[in-house]
Protein backbone atom coordinates (compact mmCIF):
# COMPACT_ATOMS: atom_id res chain seq x y z
CA UNK A 1 0.00 0.00 0.00
CA UNK A 2 1.17 3.51 -0.79
CA UNK A 3 2.27 5.21 2.41
CA UNK A 4 1.25 8.63 3.64
CA UNK A 5 4.34 10.84 3.71
CA UNK A 6 5.43 13.17 6.48
CA UNK A 7 7.50 15.91 4.86
CA UNK A 8 9.55 18.57 6.67
CA UNK A 9 9.52 21.88 4.79
CA UNK A 10 12.64 24.00 4.86
CA UNK A 11 12.14 27.66 3.99
CA UNK A 12 15.26 29.31 2.88
CA UNK A 13 16.20 32.96 2.70
CA UNK A 14 19.65 34.45 2.19
CA UNK A 15 21.54 31.32 3.25
CA UNK A 16 19.47 30.99 6.41
CA UNK A 17 16.68 28.68 7.33
CA UNK A 18 13.64 30.71 8.40
CA UNK A 19 10.11 30.20 9.61
CA UNK A 20 7.36 32.78 9.78
CA UNK A 21 3.73 33.11 10.76
CA UNK A 22 1.15 33.73 8.05
CA UNK A 23 3.95 34.12 5.48
CA UNK A 24 5.37 37.01 7.53
CA UNK A 25 7.56 37.81 10.58
CA UNK A 26 10.32 35.50 9.43
CA UNK A 27 12.49 34.13 12.18
CA UNK A 28 15.87 32.65 11.55
CA UNK A 29 15.96 29.05 12.74
CA UNK A 30 19.35 27.84 11.58
CA UNK A 31 21.14 27.04 8.38
CA UNK A 32 19.94 24.76 5.64
CA UNK A 33 22.77 22.29 5.28
CA UNK A 34 22.86 20.91 8.86
CA UNK A 35 19.08 20.55 8.76
CA UNK A 36 19.28 18.53 5.56
CA UNK A 37 21.97 16.31 7.06
CA UNK A 38 19.90 15.63 10.16
CA UNK A 39 16.76 14.80 8.18
CA UNK A 40 18.82 12.62 5.88
CA UNK A 41 20.24 10.66 8.79
CA UNK A 42 16.76 10.23 10.21
CA UNK A 43 15.57 8.95 6.84
CA UNK A 44 12.58 11.26 6.48
CA UNK A 45 10.12 10.36 3.73
CA UNK A 46 10.89 13.41 1.64
CA UNK A 47 12.08 17.02 1.96
CA UNK A 48 10.75 20.27 0.51
CA UNK A 49 13.16 23.20 0.22
CA UNK A 50 11.68 26.54 -0.84
CA UNK A 51 13.65 29.71 -1.54
CA UNK A 52 11.04 32.21 -0.37
CA UNK A 53 12.60 35.42 -1.69
CA UNK A 54 13.79 34.39 -5.16
CA UNK A 55 10.59 35.45 -6.97
CA UNK A 56 10.41 38.75 -5.09
CA UNK A 57 13.96 39.59 -5.90
CA UNK A 58 13.56 38.47 -9.49
CA UNK A 59 16.46 36.04 -9.05
CA UNK A 60 16.94 32.71 -10.72
CA UNK A 61 17.09 29.79 -8.28
CA UNK A 62 20.44 29.36 -6.55
CA UNK A 63 21.60 26.23 -8.38
CA UNK A 64 24.92 26.07 -6.63
CA UNK A 65 23.35 25.81 -3.19
CA UNK A 66 20.80 23.28 -4.42
CA UNK A 67 23.67 21.25 -5.78
CA UNK A 68 25.30 21.25 -2.35
CA UNK A 69 22.05 20.37 -0.59
CA UNK A 70 21.25 17.49 -2.92
CA UNK A 71 24.72 16.01 -2.57
CA UNK A 72 23.92 15.38 1.11
CA UNK A 73 20.37 14.30 0.52
CA UNK A 74 19.55 10.63 -0.13
CA UNK A 75 15.86 11.17 0.33
CA UNK A 76 13.54 12.68 -2.30
CA UNK A 77 13.99 16.41 -2.60
CA UNK A 78 11.46 18.93 -3.92
CA UNK A 79 12.84 22.38 -4.68
CA UNK A 80 10.94 25.60 -5.32
CA UNK A 81 11.23 29.36 -5.36
CA UNK A 82 11.96 31.59 -8.33
CA UNK A 83 11.11 29.00 -10.99
CA UNK A 84 10.15 30.96 -14.13
CA UNK A 85 10.67 28.73 -17.15
CA UNK A 86 11.73 25.37 -18.58
CA UNK A 87 15.39 26.31 -18.33
CA UNK A 88 15.06 26.91 -14.56
CA UNK A 89 13.38 23.53 -14.13
CA UNK A 90 16.02 21.74 -16.17
CA UNK A 91 18.80 23.37 -14.17
CA UNK A 92 17.18 22.50 -10.84
CA UNK A 93 16.72 18.87 -11.88
CA UNK A 94 20.33 18.76 -12.96
CA UNK A 95 21.37 20.36 -9.67
CA UNK A 96 19.79 17.40 -7.91
CA UNK A 97 16.14 18.24 -7.33
CA UNK A 98 13.86 15.24 -7.78
CA UNK A 99 10.81 17.43 -8.16
CA UNK A 100 10.42 21.10 -8.90
CA UNK A 101 7.73 23.25 -7.40
CA UNK A 102 6.18 26.05 -9.47
CA UNK A 103 4.03 28.73 -7.89
CA UNK A 104 3.88 32.39 -9.05
CA UNK A 105 5.02 31.73 -12.63
CA UNK A 106 2.16 29.28 -13.19
CA UNK A 107 -0.43 32.06 -12.79
CA UNK A 108 1.29 34.32 -15.33
CA UNK A 109 1.87 31.47 -17.75
CA UNK A 110 -0.22 28.36 -17.12
CA UNK A 111 1.23 26.83 -20.30
CA UNK A 112 4.49 26.44 -18.40
CA UNK A 113 2.90 23.56 -16.46
CA UNK A 114 1.93 21.75 -19.66
CA UNK A 115 5.32 22.29 -21.29
CA UNK A 116 7.18 21.22 -18.17
CA UNK A 117 5.07 18.08 -17.77
CA UNK A 118 5.60 17.16 -21.43
CA UNK A 119 9.32 17.70 -21.24
CA UNK A 120 10.21 16.34 -17.81
CA UNK A 121 7.19 14.18 -17.00
CA UNK A 122 4.29 15.07 -14.71
CA UNK A 123 5.87 13.16 -11.87
CA UNK A 124 8.46 15.85 -11.21
CA UNK A 125 6.23 18.90 -11.58
CA UNK A 126 4.69 20.06 -8.31
CA UNK A 127 2.39 23.06 -8.39
CA UNK A 128 2.44 24.94 -5.12
CA UNK A 129 -0.79 26.74 -4.26
CA UNK A 130 -1.00 29.31 -1.45
CA UNK A 131 -4.58 30.07 -0.49
CA UNK A 132 -6.30 32.55 1.81
CA UNK A 133 -9.88 32.48 2.99
CA UNK A 134 -12.00 35.27 1.52
CA UNK A 135 -14.76 37.21 3.29
CA UNK A 136 -17.34 34.98 1.63
CA UNK A 137 -15.78 31.87 3.11
CA UNK A 138 -14.24 30.77 -0.18
CA UNK A 139 -10.54 30.38 -0.85
CA UNK A 140 -8.49 32.51 -3.19
CA UNK A 141 -5.02 31.69 -4.55
CA UNK A 142 -2.20 34.12 -3.83
CA UNK A 143 1.11 34.41 -5.64
CA UNK A 144 4.45 35.96 -4.67
CA UNK A 145 4.81 34.31 -1.30
CA UNK A 146 1.21 34.87 -0.31
CA UNK A 147 1.16 38.61 -1.06
CA UNK A 148 -0.61 39.00 -4.42
CA UNK A 149 -4.22 38.03 -4.95
CA UNK A 150 -4.73 36.19 -8.23
CA UNK A 151 -8.53 36.21 -8.32
CA UNK A 152 -8.51 32.44 -8.80
CA UNK A 153 -10.67 30.27 -6.53
CA UNK A 154 -8.58 27.42 -5.17
CA UNK A 155 -10.73 24.55 -6.43
CA UNK A 156 -10.86 25.73 -10.02
CA UNK A 157 -7.13 26.50 -10.09
CA UNK A 158 -6.32 23.08 -8.63
CA UNK A 159 -8.44 21.46 -11.33
CA UNK A 160 -6.75 23.53 -13.99
CA UNK A 161 -3.20 22.69 -12.93
CA UNK A 162 -4.10 19.00 -12.86
CA UNK A 163 -5.51 19.20 -16.39
CA UNK A 164 -2.34 20.97 -17.48
CA UNK A 165 -0.27 18.05 -16.25
CA UNK A 166 0.89 18.88 -12.72
CA UNK A 167 1.95 15.75 -10.88
CA UNK A 168 1.27 16.94 -7.38
CA UNK A 169 -0.22 19.88 -5.51
CA UNK A 170 1.47 21.43 -2.49
CA UNK A 171 -1.46 23.19 -0.85
CA UNK A 172 -0.70 25.78 1.84
CA UNK A 173 -3.10 27.77 3.98
CA UNK A 174 -1.51 31.21 4.33
CA UNK A 175 -3.49 32.04 7.49
CA UNK A 176 -2.63 28.80 9.24
CA UNK A 177 1.03 28.89 8.24
CA UNK A 178 3.24 28.97 11.33
CA UNK A 179 0.33 29.12 13.78
CA UNK A 180 0.51 25.43 14.76
CA UNK A 181 -3.29 25.54 15.16
CA UNK A 182 -3.99 22.68 12.79
CA UNK A 183 -4.38 22.32 9.05
CA UNK A 184 -7.30 24.05 7.33
CA UNK A 185 -9.29 20.88 6.72
CA UNK A 186 -11.98 22.65 4.67
CA UNK A 187 -9.38 24.00 2.30
CA UNK A 188 -7.71 20.62 1.88
CA UNK A 189 -10.99 18.81 1.36
CA UNK A 190 -12.03 21.35 -1.26
CA UNK A 191 -9.03 20.29 -3.32
CA UNK A 192 -8.73 16.57 -2.56
CA UNK A 193 -12.41 15.98 -3.34
CA UNK A 194 -11.85 16.29 -7.07
CA UNK A 195 -8.13 15.74 -7.37
CA UNK A 196 -6.76 12.75 -9.29
CA UNK A 197 -3.21 13.69 -8.32
CA UNK A 198 -1.65 13.62 -4.85
CA UNK A 199 -2.20 16.63 -2.59
CA UNK A 200 0.34 17.59 0.06
CA UNK A 201 -1.32 19.46 2.94
CA UNK A 202 0.67 22.34 4.39
CA UNK A 203 0.24 25.16 6.89
CA UNK A 204 -0.75 24.86 10.52
CA UNK A 205 0.51 21.52 11.84
CA UNK A 206 0.99 21.77 15.60
CA UNK A 207 0.53 18.19 16.69
CA UNK A 208 0.49 14.64 15.38
CA UNK A 209 -3.28 14.71 15.79
CA UNK A 210 -3.44 17.59 13.27
CA UNK A 211 -1.60 15.42 10.78
CA UNK A 212 -3.92 12.53 11.46
CA UNK A 213 -6.93 14.73 10.73
CA UNK A 214 -5.50 16.11 7.50
CA UNK A 215 -5.08 12.52 6.34
CA UNK A 216 -8.19 10.82 7.69
CA UNK A 217 -10.67 13.70 7.39
CA UNK A 218 -9.28 15.70 4.49
CA UNK A 219 -7.73 12.79 2.52
CA UNK A 220 -4.37 14.30 1.66
CA UNK A 221 -1.58 12.05 0.36
CA UNK A 222 1.14 13.71 2.43
CA UNK A 223 1.50 16.20 5.27
CA UNK A 224 4.14 18.90 5.15
CA UNK A 225 5.18 20.77 8.27
CA UNK A 226 7.86 23.17 9.46
CA UNK A 227 7.22 24.96 12.78
CA UNK A 228 6.29 21.78 14.62
CA UNK A 229 9.72 20.36 13.80
CA UNK A 230 11.65 23.61 14.33
CA UNK A 231 10.02 24.82 17.54
CA UNK A 232 8.83 21.72 19.39
CA UNK A 233 10.30 18.38 20.39
CA UNK A 234 8.06 16.59 17.90
CA UNK A 235 9.79 14.70 15.08
CA UNK A 236 8.79 13.20 11.73
CA UNK A 237 9.55 9.68 13.03
CA UNK A 238 7.36 10.10 16.13
CA UNK A 239 4.64 11.55 13.90
CA UNK A 240 4.69 8.38 11.84
CA UNK A 241 4.57 6.18 14.91
CA UNK A 242 1.50 8.11 16.06
CA UNK A 243 -0.12 7.77 12.64
CA UNK A 244 0.71 4.10 12.54
CA UNK A 245 -1.02 3.44 15.86
CA UNK A 246 -4.05 5.21 14.36
CA UNK A 247 -4.08 2.80 11.44
CA UNK A 248 -2.59 5.13 8.87
CA UNK A 249 -0.16 3.33 6.55
CA UNK A 250 3.24 4.96 6.90
CA UNK A 251 6.61 3.85 5.67
CA UNK A 252 7.50 0.67 7.47
CA UNK A 253 9.75 1.76 10.27
CA UNK A 254 10.39 -1.78 11.52
CA UNK A 255 11.81 -3.10 8.28
CA UNK A 256 14.00 -0.01 7.96
CA UNK A 257 15.47 -0.67 11.37
CA UNK A 258 16.22 -4.30 10.57
CA UNK A 259 18.31 -3.18 7.63
CA UNK A 260 20.05 -0.57 9.75
CA UNK A 261 21.54 -3.14 12.06
Amino acid at each position, binding site marked *: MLKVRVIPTLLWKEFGLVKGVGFDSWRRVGTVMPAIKVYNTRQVDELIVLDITATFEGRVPDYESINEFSAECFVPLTVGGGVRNLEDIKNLLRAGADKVSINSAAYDNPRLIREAADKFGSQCIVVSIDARKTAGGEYECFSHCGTRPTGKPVDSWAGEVERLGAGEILLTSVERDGTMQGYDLHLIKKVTRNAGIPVIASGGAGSYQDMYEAISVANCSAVAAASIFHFTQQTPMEAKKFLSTHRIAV*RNVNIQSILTE
Partner: protein
Amino acid sequence: MSVVIVDYGLSNLGSIRRSLEECGATVRVSDDPKALRTASRVVLPGVGSFADGMVNLRKGGWVTALQEAAKEEKIPLLGICLGMQLLADRGHEGGDIPGLGLLPGEVRRLEPHSHAEKIPHVGWNEIYPSGKSSLFNGIPDGSDFYFVHSYHLIPKYKDHVIATTPYCGRFVSAVGTGNIFGVQFHPEKSGRPGFHVLDNFLNL
Protein backbone atom coordinates in the same frame (compact mmCIF):
# COMPACT_ATOMS: atom_id res chain seq x y z
CA MET B 1 34.26 -1.55 -9.74
CA SER B 2 33.88 1.05 -12.48
CA VAL B 3 30.35 2.25 -13.07
CA VAL B 4 29.30 4.45 -15.96
CA ILE B 5 26.17 6.53 -15.49
CA VAL B 6 24.60 7.38 -18.83
CA ASP B 7 24.12 11.14 -19.05
CA TYR B 8 21.59 11.85 -21.78
CA GLY B 9 20.56 15.23 -20.49
CA LEU B 10 17.36 14.57 -18.59
CA SER B 11 18.16 13.32 -15.18
CA ASN B 12 19.14 14.21 -11.71
CA LEU B 13 22.50 12.47 -11.68
CA GLY B 14 23.97 13.81 -8.45
CA SER B 15 22.26 11.49 -6.01
CA ILE B 16 22.69 8.30 -8.03
CA ARG B 17 26.36 9.11 -8.46
CA ARG B 18 26.83 9.80 -4.76
CA SER B 19 24.97 6.68 -3.67
CA LEU B 20 27.06 4.44 -5.92
CA GLU B 21 30.18 6.08 -4.52
CA GLU B 22 28.91 5.42 -1.00
CA CYS B 23 28.68 1.76 -2.05
CA GLY B 24 32.36 1.84 -2.94
CA ALA B 25 32.18 2.13 -6.73
CA THR B 26 34.29 4.31 -8.96
CA VAL B 27 31.72 6.31 -10.87
CA ARG B 28 31.94 8.10 -14.18
CA VAL B 29 29.04 10.21 -15.42
CA SER B 30 29.45 10.31 -19.15
CA ASP B 31 27.76 11.83 -22.18
CA ASP B 32 30.03 9.81 -24.47
CA PRO B 33 28.90 6.29 -25.45
CA LYS B 34 32.57 5.28 -25.85
CA ALA B 35 32.75 5.31 -22.05
CA LEU B 36 30.81 2.02 -22.06
CA ARG B 37 33.88 0.21 -23.42
CA THR B 38 35.65 0.46 -20.09
CA ALA B 39 32.61 0.02 -17.87
CA SER B 40 32.09 -2.96 -15.61
CA ARG B 41 28.58 -1.76 -14.73
CA VAL B 42 26.19 0.60 -16.54
CA VAL B 43 23.42 2.62 -14.91
CA LEU B 44 20.71 4.17 -17.07
CA PRO B 45 18.88 6.71 -14.93
CA GLY B 46 16.04 8.88 -16.11
CA VAL B 47 13.43 11.44 -15.32
CA GLY B 48 11.03 12.59 -17.96
CA SER B 49 8.86 11.23 -20.70
CA PHE B 50 9.55 8.09 -22.73
CA ALA B 51 9.50 10.08 -25.98
CA ASP B 52 12.02 12.65 -24.78
CA GLY B 53 14.16 9.91 -23.29
CA MET B 54 14.47 8.05 -26.60
CA VAL B 55 15.05 11.27 -28.55
CA ASN B 56 17.92 12.15 -26.23
CA LEU B 57 19.40 8.65 -26.26
CA ARG B 58 19.42 8.74 -30.05
CA LYS B 59 20.84 12.23 -30.18
CA GLY B 60 23.65 11.19 -27.87
CA GLY B 61 24.44 8.09 -29.93
CA TRP B 62 23.56 5.80 -27.02
CA VAL B 63 21.05 3.41 -28.57
CA THR B 64 23.39 1.05 -30.42
CA ALA B 65 26.13 1.47 -27.83
CA LEU B 66 23.81 0.40 -24.99
CA GLN B 67 22.42 -2.51 -27.02
CA GLU B 68 25.94 -3.75 -27.75
CA ALA B 69 27.17 -3.28 -24.18
CA ALA B 70 24.19 -5.15 -22.77
CA LYS B 71 23.63 -7.85 -25.40
CA GLU B 72 27.11 -8.60 -26.70
CA GLU B 73 29.49 -7.50 -23.97
CA LYS B 74 27.01 -8.69 -21.31
CA ILE B 75 27.90 -5.78 -19.03
CA PRO B 76 25.43 -5.67 -16.14
CA LEU B 77 23.00 -2.83 -16.80
CA LEU B 78 20.56 -1.25 -14.36
CA GLY B 79 17.77 1.01 -15.61
CA ILE B 80 16.18 3.23 -12.97
CA CYS B 81 12.65 4.68 -13.27
CA LEU B 82 12.40 5.99 -16.85
CA GLY B 83 15.69 4.16 -17.43
CA MET B 84 13.87 0.89 -16.69
CA GLN B 85 10.99 1.79 -19.00
CA LEU B 86 13.35 2.62 -21.86
CA LEU B 87 14.59 -1.00 -21.81
CA ALA B 88 11.23 -2.09 -23.26
CA ASP B 89 10.30 -2.64 -26.91
CA ARG B 90 7.78 0.18 -26.98
CA GLY B 91 6.41 3.07 -24.95
CA HIS B 92 3.14 4.97 -25.13
CA GLU B 93 4.07 8.24 -23.42
CA GLY B 94 4.25 11.02 -26.00
CA GLY B 95 3.20 8.72 -28.88
CA ASP B 96 3.83 5.09 -29.78
CA ILE B 97 7.61 4.95 -29.66
CA PRO B 98 10.18 2.18 -29.99
CA GLY B 99 12.41 1.69 -26.96
CA LEU B 100 15.83 0.07 -26.56
CA GLY B 101 14.36 -3.41 -26.98
CA LEU B 102 16.57 -4.92 -24.28
CA LEU B 103 13.67 -6.39 -22.35
CA PRO B 104 10.58 -7.56 -24.24
CA GLY B 105 7.51 -5.65 -23.17
CA GLU B 106 5.77 -2.31 -23.40
CA VAL B 107 5.24 0.75 -21.25
CA ARG B 108 1.75 1.94 -20.44
CA ARG B 109 0.08 4.44 -18.13
CA LEU B 110 -0.97 3.23 -14.68
CA GLU B 111 -4.74 2.85 -14.39
CA PRO B 112 -6.18 3.71 -10.97
CA HIS B 113 -8.62 1.20 -9.49
CA SER B 114 -10.26 3.78 -7.20
CA HIS B 115 -10.34 7.54 -6.48
CA ALA B 116 -7.94 6.88 -3.61
CA GLU B 117 -5.26 5.80 -6.10
CA LYS B 118 -3.74 9.00 -7.41
CA ILE B 119 -1.56 9.16 -10.50
CA PRO B 120 1.40 9.82 -10.49
CA HIS B 121 2.20 7.09 -8.00
CA VAL B 122 4.35 9.18 -5.66
CA GLY B 123 5.88 8.08 -2.40
CA TRP B 124 6.89 4.98 -0.49
CA ASN B 125 5.41 1.67 -1.41
CA GLU B 126 6.24 -1.96 -0.83
CA ILE B 127 8.06 -4.25 -3.16
CA TYR B 128 7.64 -8.03 -3.19
CA PRO B 129 10.70 -9.65 -4.76
CA SER B 130 9.94 -12.86 -6.60
CA GLY B 131 12.81 -14.47 -4.73
CA LYS B 132 14.96 -15.52 -7.62
CA SER B 133 16.96 -12.40 -8.41
CA SER B 134 20.18 -11.69 -6.57
CA LEU B 135 19.41 -7.97 -7.01
CA PHE B 136 17.12 -8.33 -3.98
CA ASN B 137 19.29 -10.54 -1.81
CA GLY B 138 18.63 -9.59 1.80
CA ILE B 139 15.63 -7.38 0.99
CA PRO B 140 12.61 -8.61 2.97
CA ASP B 141 9.17 -8.85 1.36
CA GLY B 142 7.25 -5.63 1.87
CA SER B 143 10.28 -3.33 2.11
CA ASP B 144 9.40 0.25 1.22
CA PHE B 145 11.04 2.01 -1.69
CA TYR B 146 10.49 5.45 -3.17
CA PHE B 147 8.45 5.71 -6.37
CA VAL B 148 7.54 8.65 -8.55
CA HIS B 149 6.02 7.69 -11.92
CA SER B 150 2.84 7.55 -14.00
CA TYR B 151 3.84 4.76 -16.40
CA HIS B 152 4.96 1.19 -15.88
CA LEU B 153 6.68 -1.52 -17.86
CA ILE B 154 4.60 -4.58 -18.69
CA PRO B 155 7.09 -7.37 -19.52
CA LYS B 156 6.14 -9.86 -22.21
CA TYR B 157 7.50 -12.79 -20.21
CA LYS B 158 6.50 -13.56 -16.64
CA ASP B 159 9.93 -14.85 -15.72
CA HIS B 160 11.37 -11.37 -16.32
CA VAL B 161 9.39 -10.08 -13.33
CA ILE B 162 11.65 -9.87 -10.28
CA ALA B 163 9.46 -7.70 -8.03
CA THR B 164 5.91 -6.38 -7.89
CA THR B 165 4.18 -3.58 -6.01
CA PRO B 166 0.55 -3.42 -4.87
CA TYR B 167 -0.88 -0.33 -6.59
CA CYS B 168 -3.33 0.00 -9.48
CA GLY B 169 -3.91 -3.70 -9.05
CA ARG B 170 -0.33 -4.88 -8.90
CA PHE B 171 2.36 -3.57 -11.18
CA VAL B 172 5.82 -4.84 -12.03
CA SER B 173 8.29 -2.76 -10.04
CA ALA B 174 11.47 -4.56 -11.11
CA VAL B 175 12.53 -6.67 -14.09
CA GLY B 176 15.58 -8.74 -14.85
CA THR B 177 16.92 -11.09 -17.46
CA GLY B 178 20.54 -12.21 -17.51
CA ASN B 179 22.70 -9.13 -17.04
CA ILE B 180 19.87 -6.65 -17.71
CA PHE B 181 17.90 -5.18 -14.80
CA GLY B 182 15.36 -2.44 -14.30
CA VAL B 183 13.79 -0.95 -11.19
CA GLN B 184 10.82 1.40 -11.27
CA PHE B 185 11.65 2.84 -7.84
CA HIS B 186 14.59 5.08 -7.00
CA PRO B 187 17.20 3.10 -5.03
CA GLU B 188 19.25 6.29 -4.69
CA LYS B 189 16.35 7.91 -2.82
CA SER B 190 15.22 4.93 -0.79
CA GLY B 191 17.52 5.12 2.21
CA ARG B 192 19.33 2.00 3.38
CA PRO B 193 17.26 -0.56 1.47
CA GLY B 194 18.12 1.42 -1.65
CA PHE B 195 21.83 1.27 -0.93
CA HIS B 196 21.42 -2.44 -0.35
CA VAL B 197 19.99 -2.95 -3.84
CA LEU B 198 22.79 -0.88 -5.42
CA ASP B 199 25.31 -2.91 -3.45
CA ASN B 200 23.75 -6.12 -4.77
CA PHE B 201 23.98 -4.74 -8.31
CA LEU B 202 27.69 -3.99 -7.85
CA ASN B 203 28.28 -7.46 -6.42
CA LEU B 204 26.36 -9.49 -9.01
